[in-house]
């Protein structure tokens, strides 16, 4: 039978297992928005860790990072490990998000900001920022699946068919039982992701005659890819900071990830989530880097670097069964991210835009209906259209990794407000609104026009403008002192009690 048949067979098995898990999760589902959007803050350590890992690590890794390493060398690994090191900041933010989430009943990170700065407009702005910038990030996941299925079938499956598969699965799983089905399917998918990539690494290393021989070949054949900048000049300091800065703050700026800081059921599960994620991330990043190098050794000169992983899977020394399992692992990585994004966006639209700004008397049933029946399908369709459009483009700007980082550059504009919420009583709603709106416009304009003044990337300029405006405008406007005192006073007491820092 052909590779096309087996590719569809693998997808079919994966979809059936995913649907069964989602339906089982639905049986445990309670009622209300808290249960649908954040599983009633009752997720255990293992599932918390796995859903955090699967949501964070997407098609970006096995397609995007592998392609970036293949095309530009070791700077790509440094960029991705900078993100992982940035998770260090969760020792500050995880207990803070978790404590105030429980105390005040926040469902989304935007809701936290709205309450802390005493302004529904702050929550609405944060939600709109996420709606705008998460669309390209969701779309690149779909593109990754499209490239992969096309590559495995040697073009017999069109890229758009793969995009459609990821669209349908993410749509279904985010609607079936909300966070519970997303978290449970994520746990299954994270296991598939890590196990399959370890298996593939073994096969690749064996092909090169073992790890020692593989490393020797990397040193002797592609030495120009092992430094920063690389031999072709990629990874200047400007490029590194431009891509890594948004990535560094990903854990607090991306709502689909920071919303997960609300879901652990206890401090012990928080520790398991954080520790497990560090281990997962380290293994996954190093393995993806080695896949990129193996591609550069085996088939240099691909026109589209994002095709490195699909091309690697099409090599004759990789058994078809292994290739199909890996394909399912990457499919899992992509879909687990898209469904989390859809769920997060739907919660923010329902809570922070609809209830916050449009209809303040909206019942929980109405919020759920809007999130499930309108926002999730509409955002999925928009991401689908974006993915279809971007998949026809070539060049660095349309590679998966830079596109993902560009999305996070926009979301970076909310970071000063998040820092202010927890660490500075002087922050004001005017400061938040000015900094996020102007910063996001700067990022959007620079990204669309391709302008890089002084060689610095859009996220860097946006961040500079955003920080200046947040502190500058806050300094001349009135802070919600009473709320700030109460919010930070509560945290001070509880942080000391739990020996948090």
């Amino acid at each position, binding site marked *: 039978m052909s590779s096309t048949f087996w590719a569809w067979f693998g997808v079919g098995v994966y979809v059936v297992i995913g649907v069964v898990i989602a339906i089982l999760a639905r049986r445990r589902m309670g009622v209300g928005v808290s249960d649908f959007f954040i599983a009633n803050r009752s997720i255990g350590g293992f599932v918390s860790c796995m859903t955090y890992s699967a949501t964070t690590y997407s098609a970006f890794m096995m397609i995007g990072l592998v392609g970036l390493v293949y095309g530009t060398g*070791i700077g790509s690994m*440094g960029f991705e490990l900078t993100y992982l090191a940035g998770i260090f900041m969760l020792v500050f933010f995880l207990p803070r998000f978790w404590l105030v989430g*429980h105390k005040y009943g926040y469902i989304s990170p935007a809701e936290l900001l709205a309450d802390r700065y005493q302004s529904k407009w702050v929550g609405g702005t944060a939600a709109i920022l996420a709606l705008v910038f998460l669309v390209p990030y969701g779309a690149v996941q779909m593109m990754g699946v499209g490239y992969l299925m096309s590559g495995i079938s040697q073009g017999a499956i069109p890229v758009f068919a793969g995009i459609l598969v990821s669209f349908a699965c993410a749509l279904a799983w985010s609607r079936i039982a909300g966070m519970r089905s997303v978290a449970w399917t994520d746990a299954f998918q994270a296991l598939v992701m890590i196990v399959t990539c370890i298996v593939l690494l073994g096969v690749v290393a064996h092909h090169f005659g073992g790890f020692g021989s593989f490393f020797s070949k990397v040193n002797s054949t592609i030495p120009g890819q092992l430094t920063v900048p690389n031999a072709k000049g990629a990874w200047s300091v400007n490029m590194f900071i431009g891509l890594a800065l948004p990535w560094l703050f990903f854990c607090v700026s991306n709502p689909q990830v920071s919303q997960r800081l609300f879901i652990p059921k206890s401090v012990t599960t928080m520790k398991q989530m954080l520790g497990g994620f560090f281990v997962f991330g380290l293994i996954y990043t190093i393995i993806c880097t080695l896949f990129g190098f193996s591609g550069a050794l085996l088939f240099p000169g691909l026109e589209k670097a994002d095709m490195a992983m699909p091309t690697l899977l099409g090599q004759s020394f990789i058994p078809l069964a292994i290739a199909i399992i890996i394909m399912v692992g990457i499919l899992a990585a992509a879909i687990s991210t898209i469904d989390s994004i859809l769920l997060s966006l739907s919660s923010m639209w329902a809570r922070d835009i609809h209830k916050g700004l449009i209809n303040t008397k909206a019942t929980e049933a109405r919020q759920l209906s809007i999130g499930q029946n309108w926002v999730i399908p509409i955002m999925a369709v928009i991401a689908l259209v974006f993915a279809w459009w971007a998949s026809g483009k070539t060049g660095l700007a349309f590679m998966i990794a830079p596109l993902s980082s560009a999305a996070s550059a926009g979301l970076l504009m909310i970071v000063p407000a998040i820092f202010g919420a927890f660490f500075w009583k002087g922050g004001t709603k005017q400061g938040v609104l000015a900094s996020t709106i102007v910063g996001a416009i700067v990022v959007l304009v620079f990204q669309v026009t391709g302008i890089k003044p002084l060689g610095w990337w859009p996220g860097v300029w946006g961040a500079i403008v955003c920080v200046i405006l947040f502190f500058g405008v806050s300094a001349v406007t009135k802070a919600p002192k009473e709320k700030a005192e109460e919010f930070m006073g509560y945290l001070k007491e*509880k942080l000391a009690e739990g020996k*948090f820092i």
Partner: protein
Amino acid sequence: MSKLRGAWVWFVFMLVLDIVIPWAALTHVQTLGGAFTFWIIWVIVAIISAFVIFTKWMEVKP
């Protein structure tokens, strides 16, 4: 210096190393013993630092 401030200072110091070492000290080392090894050791140090902090957390009722 409070523990909070000390942890932030340590984190910023790590970020400075993230750029200074690969671009200044290792920019001519064209082997896996250069930036590749540095970044792996660097991130392991960051991870261990986080473990040192969060393993001390105690159970608390919000």
